[in-house]
């Protein structure tokens, strides 16, 4: 789609684009180029000069047990966050959709965790599950379960998944509810007259019509779990215990800033860029065909 009527100015459009292009060049393109450049070097132990290694950093990463472990941890974490937050949000949206008059009241009550920063969400859940003073940890102990995510990797993973999912429920709820409210009532009426029960109506009509929304949310949730959960990991577990919550985005930080291994950190950045690129392409190809409401 193009505008038929346009302005004829030679210099003005460049002037208008200048601020965004300058910032993009300085803070995006140059650092991204630097990442690619640095990923081809290994600094010597004294940090005085670097040695060119080509794709050596990548080769090392792909053979590195810890890196592959981090990949697996990220996959487990993202899929769990997507499943938990989307499952609960869909359940709540289906329920809210049944009480039309009050649906907006529930939307207001459920929408606000979106505004809570991931790091703050981490602090709240950390406080609830703190092994010695946390309220939930205390009641678990009363029931005979000794909760300690500081020592137990599976419990640490469960805690960061809960904190990350809690924050994301409101976003998913909003889109599921909008998707549900866009389904024509006459369709459901007709099915009801034909004698289809509520359960059957959901699986044969509602669920297929929601699939574009579901797929879109799946991509958004994976991107969120991959890149926006740094604050949760940093406040709750710092990647521990024993690297059990060391997701990729946290590893870039831990290796680059804490471990000062710039070559490896840069190579990890480049790999993550490829992952983001892939997800963006999937999302864009898909959004072209997305149902609008």
């Amino acid at each position, binding site marked *: 789609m193009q505008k038929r*009527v346009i302005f004829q100015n030679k210099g003005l459009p460049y002037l208008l*684009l200048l601020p965004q292009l300058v910032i993009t060049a300085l803070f995006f393109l140059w*650092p991204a180029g630097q990442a690619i450049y640095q990923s081809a070097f290994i600094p010597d132990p004294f940090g005085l000069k670097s040695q060119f290694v080509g794709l050596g950093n990548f080769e090392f990463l792909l053979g590195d047990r810890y890196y592959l472990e981090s990949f697996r941890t990220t996959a487990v974490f993202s899929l769990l966050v997507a499943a938990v937050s989307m499952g609960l949000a869909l359940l709540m949206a289906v329920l809210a959709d049944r009480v039309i008059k009050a649906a907006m009241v529930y939307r207001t009550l459920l929408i606000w965790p979106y505004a809570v920063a991931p790091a703050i969400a981490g602090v709240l859940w950390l406080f609830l599950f703190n092994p010695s003073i946390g309220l939930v940890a205390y009641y678990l102990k009363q029931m005979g379960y000794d909760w300690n995510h500081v020592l137990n990797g599976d419990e640490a993973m469960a805690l960061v998944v809960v904190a990350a999912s809690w924050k994301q429920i409101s976003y998913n709820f909003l889109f599921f509810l909008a998707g549900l409210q866009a389904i024509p009532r006459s369709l459901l009426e007709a099915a009801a007259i034909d004698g289809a029960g509520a359960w059957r109506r959901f699986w044969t009509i509602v669920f297929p019509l929601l699939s574009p929304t579901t797929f879109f949310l799946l991509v958004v949730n994976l991107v969120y779990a991959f890149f926006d959960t740094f604050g949760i990991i940093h406040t709750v577990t710092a990647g521990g215990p024993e690297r059990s919550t060391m997701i990729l985005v946290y590893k870039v930080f831990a290796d680059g800033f804490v471990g000062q291994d710039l070559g490896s950190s840069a190579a990890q950045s480049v790999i993550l860029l490829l992952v983001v690129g892939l997800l963006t392409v999937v999302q864009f190809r898909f959004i072209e065909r997305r149902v609008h409401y």
Partner: protein
Amino acid sequence: MNGAGMVEKRGWGLWLTHVLLLLGVALVCFPIYVTLVASTVTQQDIVQPPLPLIPGSHAIENYSKALWSGVNTPVWRMLMNSTVMALGITVGKIIISLLSAYAIVYFRFPGRSFCFWTIFLTLMLPVEVRIVPTYEVVAGFGLLNSYAGLTLPLIASATATFLFRQFFMTVPDELVEAARIDGAGPVRFFFDVLLPLSRTNIAALFVILFIYGWNQYLWPLLVTTDPAMNTIVMGIKQMISSGDDWTEWPVVMATAILAMLPPVAVVVFMQRLFVKGLVETEK
């Protein structure tokens, strides 16, 4: 399911739906309620579990301690830093995006599609992914511990540019024709016609971007080594030490509430704009 007549829920089915929904709401609100309670009791109440479930009487004491002295930095100072950062990111993004979208939609010039793709690339590079090189660039400019260093790297993003581009495409061409017949140039047209038309879009985007800016964590963590420049969302982490006895939980919890208040208030009070902004930016 929605609808009237046969699909409508009545009687105990409807009642059960409300009960389940309220249960869900209670579950979502539980962590916040516990935080609120913890910010009104004493340290003693917290380190001897279980925490009481009724708010205590020490709210004023805890909140004023957080605001005026804090742990490393008084919270009023961190709130101010967060406000400057959030507004800087929001206003910056909106201004540069309006200008570049205007150039791309209303002008034809050599290099137009190159510029468009360069901006598009930025969509694919979250700051979390390129922290080390970006940090080096900002350090090289001497922008560590400055508001410019906090905001500039987060200002460039293609999302807002795309949103305005989509919106400008839907503005009828007759308006430009009319403006040109009236002898208005591109600058006049932008200020007199396009900006007033974009008001709602700008407001919706403002809400979304303010939350995004306020909630930044990793970037301020790297750029502000001086406690006086800490933002509240990252500063709260420094208030929690590894030993529970050394952490002043009531003050930390009061700080958590203060850190949540501005973005949550924006979402609740501008819900319509917020939802519009969320749906628009995802298209």
